[in-house]
């Protein structure tokens, strides 16, 4: 593997290899020294064009646990505000010879573009409404720990599918690992032809009991223009996962941050079915496994040198 841009590039074997390694990393967190020297001397560049606490800090911690050096580059308060283009930023930061660039961008395809401008390994940490592959990997990891595996399991993804890169990556990952995926949400928040990814589409929660796993998405008000939902109260009435709808044997997931009282009621967030904190914990080990997959054992021919800028 050279980059991690999309779950679509991974086979089931790739996913299993990465997650098995994540399991091996879990015990590091219990030790006195929570660090291994596996990526000593490597540089990881976090390039975040969108607000993110969880993903950025979890990538940073993952890199540090592997003894890599981390440079954080946030778009606000930087040269980006002065009008620098993505390409110029990447080429400039390339002077630091990063071995990996972790990029979060509001624009779909940004990570793939960056991969064409640098010789560093590029990890997509969310590009617009397209994909968020490490989120999907950590969700599969969480379910593997919780349920053993997800072959033949029924997973319902509920909520704002249209704006969700998490949904897209998770559909691909859950399908690759043998689960049945059902999408539920209001028609205004359901992308057209999403069935093409091999999942069922529903517009109500009537048969929610069929699900083994309920995956609620955050209602992304910041990406909406006000026409998609009449009101949050109406959304909550029809699609909120609450104690009445959630069965005790079901597993409840959410990528965070949770809008309590909107997509989830407060009681289910704190219920034993919720594995939301497990997901956060899985984030670090899975990102360690991804960094290790991309950076350990790379070619001897000086992988860390940036290519000279190509004429555009």
């Amino acid at each position: 593997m050279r980059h991690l841009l999309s779950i679509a590039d991974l086979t089931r074997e790739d996913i299993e290899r990465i997650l098995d390694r994540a399991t091996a990393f879990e015990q590091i967190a219990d030790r006195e020294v929570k660090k291994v020297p596996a990526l000593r001397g490597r540089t990881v560049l976090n390039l975040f064009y969108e607000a993110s606490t969880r993903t950025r800090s979890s990538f940073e911690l993952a890199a540090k646990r592997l003894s890599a050096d981390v440079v954080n580059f946030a778009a606000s308060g930087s040269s980006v505000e002065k009008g620098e283009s993505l390409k110029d930023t990447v080429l400039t930061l390339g002077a630091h010879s990063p071995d990996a660039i972790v990029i979060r961008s509001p624009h779909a395809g940004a990570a793939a573009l960056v991969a064409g401008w640098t010789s560093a390994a590029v990890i997509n940490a969310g590009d617009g409404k397209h994909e968020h592959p490490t989120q999907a990997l950590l969700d599969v990891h969480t379910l593997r720990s919780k349920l053993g595996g997800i072959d033949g399991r029924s997973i319902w993804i509920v909520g704002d599918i249209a704006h969700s890169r998490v949904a897209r990556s998770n559909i691909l990952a859950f399908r690759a690992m043998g689960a049945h995926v059902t999408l539920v949400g209001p028609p205004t928040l359901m992308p057209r032809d999403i069935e093409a990814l091999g999942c069922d589409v529903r517009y109500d929660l009537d048969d929610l009991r069929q699900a083994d796993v309920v995956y609620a998405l955050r209602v992304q008000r910041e990406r909406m223009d006000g026409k998609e939902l009449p009101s949050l109260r109406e959304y909550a009435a029809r699609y909120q996962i609450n104690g009445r709808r959630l069965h005790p044997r079901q597993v409840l997931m959410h990528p965070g941050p949770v809008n309590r009282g909107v997509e989830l009621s407060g009681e289910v967030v704190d219920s034993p079915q919720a594995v939301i904190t497990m997901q956060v914990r899985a984030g670090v080990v899975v990102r360690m496994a991804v960094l290790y997959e991309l950076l350990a054992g790379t070619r001897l021919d000086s992988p860390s040198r940036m290519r000279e800028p190509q004429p555009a």
Partner: protein
Amino acid sequence: MPDAKVVLDRDDVRRTLVRIAHEIVEKTPEPELLALVGIHRRGAFLAARLKDQLDELLGADVPLGDIDIAFYRDDLRSRSGAPVVHASHVDFDVDGRTIVIVDDVLYTGRTVRAAIEALFDYGRPGRIQLAVLADRGHRELPFRPDYVGKNLPTSKQERVNVRVEELDGVDEVAITALEEAVA
């Protein structure tokens, strides 16, 4: 395996481990501080067998751990592909203990270096010793084993294959020419 020269067979391996266990008991003044740590993968099985012997000899439950040194290797960059890694298990407090690192073959010493580095991430052992089933020479680092099953003078063109019942269905130590071992 063609041209494999078996230097230790099943009974030899068993006797060797019994002998090493006795030597460990002899050289350990404070058996209550003793612990074993095997290096993945075959060293871990050998360590488990030594533990059985030691438990019997000492009438105690000797702590046993295993470590994977993949994250500590000094040749990560030059190997193609990321190595397979296993979880490490060191569930006891290593501070102040006498830890015997157990591996199958001692060669350049780089694995031992990595194992020692890994151990220090769990705490500060009082003493570290090294037990190996076979020592084939060609050290690149200044290590000397405390307990050796068999000294095997070999050339670098040869390969020492240790097979253990738990993984390979048979206990033996054999020497093969490198070409066959790679094929």
